């Protein structure tokens, strides 16, 4: 008996990092799970590693494209007949610079990757969730959705925006059996962080090891978080027991955020 037997989840990203850990956790509790990503090859590899059999499915999706986002949600419903859980997990930023030097392209890219994608998938998922009067929408925000950091302005801005969207949507659908929450993880050394961290560090005038150390030192636990930390909270929010939690921005950051 799993906590999510018969439930259907759709995760943006999910072939690695936080999304992959959430996929594994939801599969482990009996849900059917659609993961997505740009590379079909990576997707197939992730599915094999997840080992969910018929309960696992991969859809190619570039979350920076609206059509891809909507098609991903639709494909979930086509494959498994419904969508109960949406995890808007993909995200990141490139072209890190202080605001004074931040390019339109980097800002626009961060907007699409994080905020637009969350909005597009949420809006589409609600189309299915509202009539069935059941749903769980989980956005993977960030500690940067609550606090500001120099040199990361575009990332901080879009994560704050996701928290606002989460709170508004939660109030719109609160009596419809649908919860909308954000998880705000502290820094985690995922592939995205390893790829983009050096650029972010340079924008802040420090080295990547110094950036990692800075995040660790700001926390109470003095180390980075792990993807499994986020998956554990996502599981609670996705479960029936999470019905009374909505509009929340849950910090999974080792005590970093002040609120």
């Amino acid at each position, binding site marked *: 008996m799993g906590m999510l037997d018969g439930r259907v989840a759709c995760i943006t990203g999910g072939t690695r990092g936080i999304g992959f850990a959430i996929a594994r956790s939801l599969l482990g509790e009996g849900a059917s799970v659609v993961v997505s990503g740009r590379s079909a090859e990576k997707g197939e590899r992730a599915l094999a590693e997840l080992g969910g059999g018929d309960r696992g499915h991969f859809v190619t999706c570039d979350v920076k494209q609206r059509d891809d986002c909507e098609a991903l949600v639709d494909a979930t419903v086509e494959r498994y007949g419904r969508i109960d859980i949406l995890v808007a997990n993909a995200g990141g930023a490139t072209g890190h610079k202080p605001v004074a030097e931040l390019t339109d392209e980097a800002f626009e890219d961060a907007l699409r990757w994080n905020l637009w994608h969350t909005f597009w998938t949420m809006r589409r998922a609600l189309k299915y969730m509202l009539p069935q009067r059941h749903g769980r929408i989980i956005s993977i925000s960030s500690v940067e959705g609550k606090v500001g950091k120099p040199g990361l302005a575009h990332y901080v801005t879009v994560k704050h925006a996701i928290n606002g969207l989460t*709170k508004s949507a*939660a*109030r719109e*659908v*609160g*009596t419809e059996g649908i*919860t909308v929450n954000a998880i705000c993880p*502290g820094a985690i050394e995922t592939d995205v962080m390893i790829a983009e961290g050096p650029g972010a560090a340079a924008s802040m005038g420090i080295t990547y090891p110094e950036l990692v150390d800075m995040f660790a030192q700001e*926390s*109470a*636990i*003095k*180390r980075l*978080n*792990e993807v*499994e*930390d986020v998956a*554990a*909270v996502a599981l*609670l929010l996705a*479960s029936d*027991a*999470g*019905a*009374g*939690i*909505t*509009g*929340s*921005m*849950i*910090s*999974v*950051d*080792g*005590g*970093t955020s*002040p*609120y």
Partner: protein
Amino acid sequence: MSRLQGKVACITGGTRSIGRAMAEAFLAEGATVVINGRDQAKGEQCIQELGAGNRTAFFPGDASRQDTVEGLIDFTIEKFGQLDICCLNSGGVKNTAPVAEMTDEEWQLEVDWNLNQVFWGMRRALKHMLPRQSGRILVTSSVEGKLGKPGIPGYVATKHAVNGLVKAAAREVGTSGITVNAILPGLIETDIVQQSGPDTAKAMGLTYEEMVATFAKESAIKRPNTVEEVAAAAVLLASDAARNITGCLFPVDGGTMPY
């Protein structure tokens, strides 16, 4: 399931309401649980109903008193050899009133019951947990730990204070394998709310029904929360999976709080 197999927990309060639901959830996950309450007969009856045999024990006493809180922790360690999860859960108001009419006696009671209890319990538990480099301290706070409500100033003030204490303590023991978190439930129609509710409502210038409706209306889900929803969050925070979540003010409030 056995997410708390081999763990030993103690709970101030615990014969009813949130504490009772926590006890049931912890027991279901394999933990050993010591509950506390003022009434010996009620306590023994509760132990019977929990039906977990020698994985449960009762420690009598008023949780607003230092000797009870410290005694509960000492008793737990003596009887079961260790303390892994310390739930400082008891709390409430007795004869609440607006500030202008608040008596010193009531103010002192609320400070002892809601704040000092948590300090006494946390300090005592840490003496045991620090050498073991392992532990979970869980405080039952409230949405009133972030928001103000007229008519219950002592409750609001002490719950705010408890949140501060949790954040400070989390940073002190963050690298010692110990997490310190608060759960912030919205209104729950517990026994204690039903008992003290009419007077509390009066202090707020409302009837009891109007007070419940007021709280429900402030939420996104437009209903009170349930004790089981709080217990599910408590299990997560008590489990190994939450080792990197600390200093967190974890909302279980149906979307009531703005932050």
